[in-house]
C-alpha cells in the first residue's frame, strides 16, 4: 500500500471539506478564528487516528452485528480522553471557544465514514495513515475558512491585528451568517474549477 498516496487522497482528491462536504457542524461553528480552526482540526485528527487504529486492530474479533456499537464506544472513549487532556494542558480560552464541539467529535460524520469504508477492512497502520490524511484534509479546510473569517471579520490573522480600524471590520463574517457565505463561496469556486477541468460537480 502506498502511504503517500493515502495521505494525498485525504488532503486533495477526497478532501472531506471541499470535495465530500462532510462534518459541516464544526466546520461552520468553530472557524471564527484561525487558531480555533487548527485546534479543532488537530483534535479531530487525533481522535480519527486513534479510533481508526484501534477499530482496525480489533476488526477480526468483533462480530459484525455489534460492530457499530463497538465503534461508538471506542470513539467516545478517545473523545473523552481528548477532552480531559485538553482541559488539563491547553489554555482555557481555547477550550471555551471550542466548547461543545469537542464532545461532538463523537458524532462526526468523517469518523464513521472512515471507520466504515476503510478501517473496518484494512490493516491498523494503513487505517491510521488514512485517518491522518483525512484529518489533515479536514484541518486544512477548517484553517482556510478560519483565516478568511478572522481576517474579514476581526481584521486579524492568528490574533495578530492587521486592520485596527474596527469600523472597517465586516463583523458579519465572524457571526453565524458569515460561516454559511464563506463555505458557500469556497464550494462554488471549487465546483467551477472542477467543471472547467471537465469533471462533474458535487
Amino acid at each position, binding site marked *: 500500500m502506498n502511504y503517500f498516496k493515502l495521505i494525498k487522497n485525504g488532503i486533495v482528491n477526497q478532501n472531506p471539506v471541499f470535495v465530500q462536504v462532510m462534518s459541516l457542524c464544526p466546520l461552520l461553528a468553530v472557524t*471564527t478564528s484561525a487558531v480555533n480552526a487548527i485546534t479543532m482540526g488537530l483534535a479531530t485528527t487525533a481522535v480519527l487516528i486513534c479510533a481508526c487504529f484501534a477499530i482496525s486492530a480489533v476488526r477480526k474479533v*468483533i*462480530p459484525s452485528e455489534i460492530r457499530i456499537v*463497538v465503534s461508538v*464506544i471506542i470513539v467516545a472513549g478517545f473523545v473523552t480522553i481528548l477532552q480531559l*487532556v485538553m482541559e*488539563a494542558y491547553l489554555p482555557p480560552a481555547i477550550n*471555551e471557544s471550542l466548547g461543545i464541539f469537542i464532545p461532538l467529535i463523537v458524532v462526526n460524520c468523517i469518523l464513521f465514514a472512515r471507520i466504515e469504508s476503510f478501517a473496518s477492512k484494512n490493516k491498523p497502520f494503513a487505517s491510521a495513515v488514512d485517518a491522518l490524511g483525512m484529518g489533515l484534509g479536514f484541518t486544512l479546510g477548517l484553517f482556510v475558512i478560519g483565516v478568511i473569517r478572522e481576517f474579514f*471579520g476581526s481584521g486579524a490573522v492568528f490574533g495578530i491585528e492587521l486592520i485596527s480600524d474596527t469600523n472597517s471590520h465586516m463583523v458579519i463574517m465572524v*457571526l453565524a451568517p458569515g460561516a454559511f457565505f464563506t463555505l458557500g463561496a469556497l464550494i462554488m469556486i471549487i465546483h467551477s474549477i472542477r467543471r472547467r477541468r471537465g469533471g462533474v460537480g458535487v
Partner: protein
Amino acid sequence: MKFVLKPAIVLFIVASATVILLTFVHSATLEPIAAQARRMREIAAIEVLPFASMIEEVELDDFDGITNVFVGLNDGLVIGYAIEAYQLGYSGRIDIMVGISVESEQITGIRILRHTETPGLGSLVTREVFYGQFYEAPLMPLRVVRSGADGADEINSITGATITAVAVTEAVNRAIEWYSLIGGSLR
C-alpha cells in the same frame, strides 16, 4: 443462544476496557486540571493588583456572585483585594477578576477570565478598550451608558453587545459590594 452470547461478551469486554482506561486518564488529569484553573486565577489576580508583592487566597463565606478572593500583600500589609465575580451574560456565565486598592479606594483593573459571548460582538469585552475603562473607577455602583461616558462612574457600552457590557459591569458592582460589606473588615 451462542448467537447472543459471543456479541454480548465482546461488547462487555470492550466497554469495560474503555471505562477502565477512562478512569485511569481521569485520575491522571484531575490534578493538572485543578492546577490549570488555579494558575489562571492567580495570574489574573497578580495582573489586577500590580503593586502587590505577593497574593494569598482567603477563606470566603458564601456571598452571591463571588467565587474567590485573594488579598494583595506588600511588606505584610494588605494593600488590595482581587475578587473573582461572575454574572450571566448574553450566552452564559462571564467570570471576571476585579482588583481593588485599599489605599486609594479605587478599582485597580479588571480581567475577563471566562466567557462564551458571541465572537466579534460580546467577545470585545476582552479588549483593553473596554475593560481598561474600569481602571481607577470609584467604589460606587457603576453604570453603562451608550457612548460618551464622562462621569467617573460611567462605562461606555459596546455596540451590539449591551447585554455583555452590562453583565461585566454588574459583576464589577458585585465585587465592589463585597468589598464594602465584608472586605473592609478582613483587614
